[in-house]
């Protein structure tokens, strides 16, 4: 089992998908064990792949990849190959995806118990993971696009899992269509890159871009189209609207979407193609600006949300923005490191909130929760750790990754970007504390909910604990010592890099500021939201009613889109339908038929029905034709 067989990682869950989809309903327990086993197998295989990859690793050149491809189709010069490409980025993504997916799968066994279509949930989950794994190991953009779309359709199926609920269906539709609009850009970008380089192979395209074989403007335009796809998938402004609504799916699905699959696809692809972004002047700046805008916007909106999952969703949007900021600073290490730590933390948070939801019998409104820590100690503790981690407190994972981020942003763009990024982190700290306090701490707001709350079974708390450990330690991967001890060439910066490896050195000033920001955020949050009365926060909201309303309504972006869709897109469709019905069909087609009929109704009077008239017509016709013929000949 070497890295060349990495495709097995995706193939096993994919195979199980077919088994479960076709026969799942006949299997005992809906075949959930098959699902867990499949992803467990992928998880185990990942270690073999990683070990094999590291055994190949060229410590001198500091860069290694393993690639394997087969010919797929050939039309003249248009040759398509499909294959896998395993390198450092792939290994990191594998680690994140397999780990989180496995935890989500195990958690779902408890969470989804007794749901209708239990087997179907697990089936689609397998396909979801398989597509994502395929996406990160694809060696060409065509395969990237294929798995990209498969990820999209799986998210559609999972978000809309409770299809009896109109809101779930609508959310699924919104997710699919919003990302699909980005995908239009992606496909255009891919084909534009192909047009210039004649290949879909990612490495060859990167070579071509780096060698300057593609004109600057052309390269910029095409990579921006590709980036549109990344924005859509990764819920960047202005495509971020689908992600909060995607909460309508079962909570484990949210965990998967937010942490390991779907949204990180955009980050992954940007990281993968980062050399091209670098080669195109200005592309990185666009990435940074999009990332910062999204991060700030999402952090603000999260303040005014009351649904646990919705708050978490906006925090994801914000963190995704920060990942793009990291990538925009030209540091794939920072971006992927943030992706990884965030994945563990966010999976933990979502599974934790899933645990809360199940423990309180499907209640996810913060206004009805509170004081749950005592009732649900394990969930509460892990959630607490995750909250602090997301807020960026040391020594928890996200502190280190955000530190890396700040360092690279500072280095690349200077103070303005650094300040904005920190602002986003600061806001995150505040609303995460708000979330935790209102859910777990203080006095219960709804007695009934509180009394029926209970801790969830081991199959759910187990993954929580495991992820909690990762949320604490995964940040340490930044240190070279830790990396080397695990057999890696060093810390994340030495493993994933663009041009040359960066040795991690902690910048005490930045770290201090970052720490200060996080602590300040946490304290302010605690001050504002502590206690049951909500006096301070209410006063705050009342002080700025319009801002509060704007935040509460997510800056009216959804309403704006709705307006555009209703009035714009559907309006055009009505116009086209009208045009087709009345102009093309009734006027053009039926109209010509009517003209024929009308002429007939006039000309019919020529048919007197009297034989002599007809005979006369014939005779005159003969005479006329003869004369005409003679004239023509003369």
């Amino acid at each position, binding site marked *: 089992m070497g890295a060349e067989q990495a495709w097995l990682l995706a193939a096993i869950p994919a195979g199980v998908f077919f088994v479960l989809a076709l026969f799942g309903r006949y299997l005992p327990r809906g075949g959930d064990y098959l699902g867990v086993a499949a992803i467990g197998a992928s998880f185990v295989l990942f270690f073999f792949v990683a070990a094999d990859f590291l055994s190949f690793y060229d410590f001198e050149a500091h860069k290694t990849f393993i690639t394997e491809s087969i010919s797929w189709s050939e039309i003249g010069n248009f040759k398509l190959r499909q294959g896998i490409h395993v390198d450092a980025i792939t290994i990191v993504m594998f680690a994140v995806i397999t780990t989180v997916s496995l935890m989500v799968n195990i958690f779902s066994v408890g969470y989804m118990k007794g749901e209708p279509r239990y087997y179907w949930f697990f089936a689609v989950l397998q396909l979801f993971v398989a597509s994502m794994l395929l996406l990160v190991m694809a060696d060409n953009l065509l395969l990237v696009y294929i798995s990209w779309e498969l990820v999209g359709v799986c998210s559609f199926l999972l978000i809309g899992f409770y299809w009896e609920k109109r809101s779930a269906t609508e959310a699924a539709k919104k997710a699919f269509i919003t990302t699909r609009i980005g995908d239009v850009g992606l496909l255009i970008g891919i084909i534009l890159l192909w047009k210039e380089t004649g290949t879909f192979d990612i490495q060859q395209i990167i070579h071509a871009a780096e060698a300057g074989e593609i004109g600057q403007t052309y390269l910029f335009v095409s990579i921006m189209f590709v980036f549109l796809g990344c924005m859509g998938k990764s819920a960047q402004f202005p495509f971020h609207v689908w992600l909060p609504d995607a909460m309508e799916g079962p909570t484990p699905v949210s965990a998967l979407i937010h942490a390991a699959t779907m949204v990180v696809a955009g980050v992954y692809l940007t990281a993968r193609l980062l050399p091209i972004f670098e080669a195109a002047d200005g592309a990185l700046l666009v990435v940074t600006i999009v990332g910062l805008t999204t991060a700030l916007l999402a952090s603000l909106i999260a303040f005014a949300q009351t649904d646990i999952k919705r708050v978490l969703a906006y925090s994801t949007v914000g963190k995704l923005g920060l990942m793009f900021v990291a990538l925009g600073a030209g540091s794939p290490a920072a971006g992927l490191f943030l992706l990884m730590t965030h994945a563990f933390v966010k999976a933990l948070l979502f599974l934790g909130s899933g645990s809360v939801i199940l423990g309180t019998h499907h209640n996810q409104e913060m206004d009805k929760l509170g004081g749950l820590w005592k009732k649900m100690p394990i969930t509460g503790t892990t959630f607490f750790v995750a909250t602090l981690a997301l807020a960026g407190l040391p020594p928890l994972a996200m502190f280190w990754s955000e530190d890396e981020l700040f360092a690279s942003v500072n280095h690349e763009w200077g103070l303005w970007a650094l300040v904005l990024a920190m602002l986003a982190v600061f806001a995150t700290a505040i609303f995460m504390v708000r979330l935790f306090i209102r859910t777990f701490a203080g006095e219960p707001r709804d007695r009934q909910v509180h009394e029926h709350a209970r801790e969830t079974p081991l199959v759910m708390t187990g993954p929580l604990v495991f992820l909690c450990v990762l949320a604490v330690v995964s940040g340490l991967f930044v240190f070279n010592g830790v990396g080397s001890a695990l057999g890696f060439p060093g810390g994340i910066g030495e493993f994933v890099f663009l041009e040359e490896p960066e040795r991690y050195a902690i910048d005490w000033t930045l770290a201090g500021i970052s720490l200060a920001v996080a602590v300040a955020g946490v304290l302010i949050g605690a001050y504002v939201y502590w206690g049951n009365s909500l006096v301070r926060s209410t006063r705050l909201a009342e002080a700025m009613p319009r801002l509060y309303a704007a935040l509460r309504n997510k800056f009216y972006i959804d309403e704006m889109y709705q307006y555009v869709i209703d009035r714009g897109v559907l309006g055009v469709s009505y116009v086209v339908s009208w045009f087709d019905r009345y102009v093309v069909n009734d006027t053009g087609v039926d109209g010509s038929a009517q003209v024929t009929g009308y002429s007939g109704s006039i000309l019919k009077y020529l048919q007197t029905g009297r034989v002599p008239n007809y005979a*006369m017509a014939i*005779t005159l016709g003969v005479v006329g034709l003869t004369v005409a013929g003679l004239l023509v000949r003369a």
Partner: protein
Amino acid sequence: MATEVLWWIFAVATVLLSAGVVFSRSVLHSAIFLIGSLGGVGAMYVFLTVDFLALVQFLVYGGAVTVLILLALMLTRTDAKESLNGTQAPWAALAGAMLLAILVSASVAVKWPGDIDDAPTTIPLETISEKLFVDFGPPFVIASVLLLVALVGAIILARQEEGE
């Protein structure tokens, strides 16, 4: 010379009789003129030395057809006061005249190949029979079937049905 004079007499007679058919004010007269006219054509066949055809002409037209027509006239008595001509008679005259002009000018203007001024070549009966029964055998048979069909059809059409 004698043939020519004779021809002219017959030709003028034929034309006059034909005119009688279409201009006469009595149906019966028309029918009688028609007999004459058809006989004139038969005479023309004689001039053209196709005696067999002349014979057929006299038998079929002079005999069968005219009898049929007379029979039909008797069965469909018409009101004597009624005009025999339709409203488009003047136009019909015009159309006929135009057609005549075209036909005559065409017959005169065309330069026919071959020997056209001399007497026509005699066509012996043997040639006709050979052509008719050997070369045109199948059409001949078909024509006979056609006659039979027409006969049956005519009977069916003209038959008095029950309840009429």
